């Protein structure tokens, strides 16, 4: 009998999560290489009794929109952007992590590190280092790092990987991704994926969409409250009518 209330509540719970996702997208509208998220809802069937069937809603998954963000020029030699589906590899204590944020810098020993100081790996899974004394660094579109000390031979080739099932990557914050299962292995990115030097990939959040989503979430939330209100009134009326002494 309370089914309308439970259905509305399932929707309200799902909407709360959707609001959190919208809020996170808006908060990260200026984060380098951030990918916007969406919530995926699915019907959740329940058969209480007598052939009756009610469907509730649950938030099944958050999906990432992995489309390319706009590129902004910074002209810093160690700012790299990936054009196409690919990731840089950085080394952490817990194994490699994947990122599209190519804002790199040098640590004290000439190693190329990301914004949090994690070493950037080359195609042979070794940290990329710039030899001492180099004053100009050039990164070609395939990731080869050249310095003014030896303009013809690359000192390293920055690793670029891609995944068959990109949506299965898990986000761990700070723009980093990790693999969820051991059978999901990175494969070297195809040759048509290019690195651009002196550019940064912006976030691909579309603020107008997020604002309209947010308004939609609020109105639906209020609508669900109205349904619960109406159901409450209906039950009250029923109890009063049926409970009246004859």
């Amino acid at each position, binding site marked *: 009998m309370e089914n309308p209330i439970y259905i509305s509540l399932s929707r309200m719970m799902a909407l709360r999560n959707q609001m959190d996702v919208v809020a996170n997208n808006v*908060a990260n509208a200026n984060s380098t290489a951030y990918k916007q998220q969406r919530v995926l809802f699915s019907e959740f069937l329940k058969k209480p009794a007598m052939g009756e069937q009610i469907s509730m809603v649950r938030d099944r998954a958050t999906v990432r929109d992995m489309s390319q963000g706009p590129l902004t020029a910074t002209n*810093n030699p160690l700012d790299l952007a990936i054009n196409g589906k690919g990731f840089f590899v950085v080394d952490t204590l817990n194994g490699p992590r994947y990122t599209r944020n190519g804002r790199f*810098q040098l640590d004290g020993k000439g190693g190329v590190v990301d914004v949090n100081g994690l070493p950037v790996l080359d195609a042979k899974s070794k940290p990329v280092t710039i030899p001492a004394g180099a004053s100009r660094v050039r990164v070609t579109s395939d990731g080869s790092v050249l310095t003014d000390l030896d303009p013809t031979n690359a000192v390293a080739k920055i690793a670029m990987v891609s995944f068959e099932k990109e949506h299965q990557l898990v986000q761990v914050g700070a723009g980093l991704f990790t693999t969820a299962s051991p059978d999901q292995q990175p494969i070297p990115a195809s040759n048509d994926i290019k690195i651009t030097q002196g550019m940064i990939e912006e976030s691909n959040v579309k603020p107008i969409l997020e604002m309209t989503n947010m308004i939609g979430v609020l109105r639906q939330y209020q609508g669900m409250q109205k349904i619960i209100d109406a159901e409450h009134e209906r039950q009250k009326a029923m109890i009063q009518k049926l409970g009246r002494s004859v």
Partner: protein
Amino acid sequence: MRSLSIGATGMQAQQLNVEVISNNIANSSTTGFKRQRAEFQDLLYQNMRRIGSTSSDAGTIIPSGVQIGSGVRTASVYRIMEQGNLTITDNKLDLAINGNGFFQIQLPSGDIAYTRDGSFALNPEGKIVTSNGYVVAPGIVVTAGATDISVSATGQVQAKVPGSVIPAIVGQINIANFANTAGLEATGDNLYLETPASGTPTTGLPGSTGLGPILQGTLETSNVNVVQEITTLITAQRAYEMNSKIIKTSDEMMQTVGQLR
């Protein structure tokens, strides 16, 4: 409501963004100033339904779970070392580097600082100093009574003394460069210090490989593009507003809950 605190992190980040932009605009006429840019990153994620967890006894796994982020943080505020415009001043000791490189300045503490601001002058002892009176390395003394000072593209300083036809060489200005100039630490007064992130300096003659030549009678203006800063300011302000809307909406949703009976 997690979205309340997420909105708050977003507002904080945009506030910092506006601070960085206002500092850029305030320094748009500072000689040799390099503009800054705030960089943001997403915070940790909470796994409501973990990707890759088993969903049945048959060993099927969840292909994509529910991951909810917790907002944004500032990762770094870094400097964009693009060349600024060059303006001609015709002042003999106004020097600009047309390309890569930094002038080396001896700080009173004995450390070396680096600058792109070449508005130099002579101090009472005849040394070439910055506008703050710090000595330009290696401490070139211009002979007293010199009538004409010239600085060549390769940094050679010559002075003409009355009574002599040929100008005398009084010193050599070398410039330094870093592998990652964005990693330098700004200390104010247009000076930068070496950090582990910048790498160690390599010094050389101006105009040699990788270093720009010196232009005499020229100054480098800031590389702030005011139009660009204003548009970024508008974006930052709108983003700030949108984050406040998120907080307002979360508030209204909580109010809705409060109206449930």
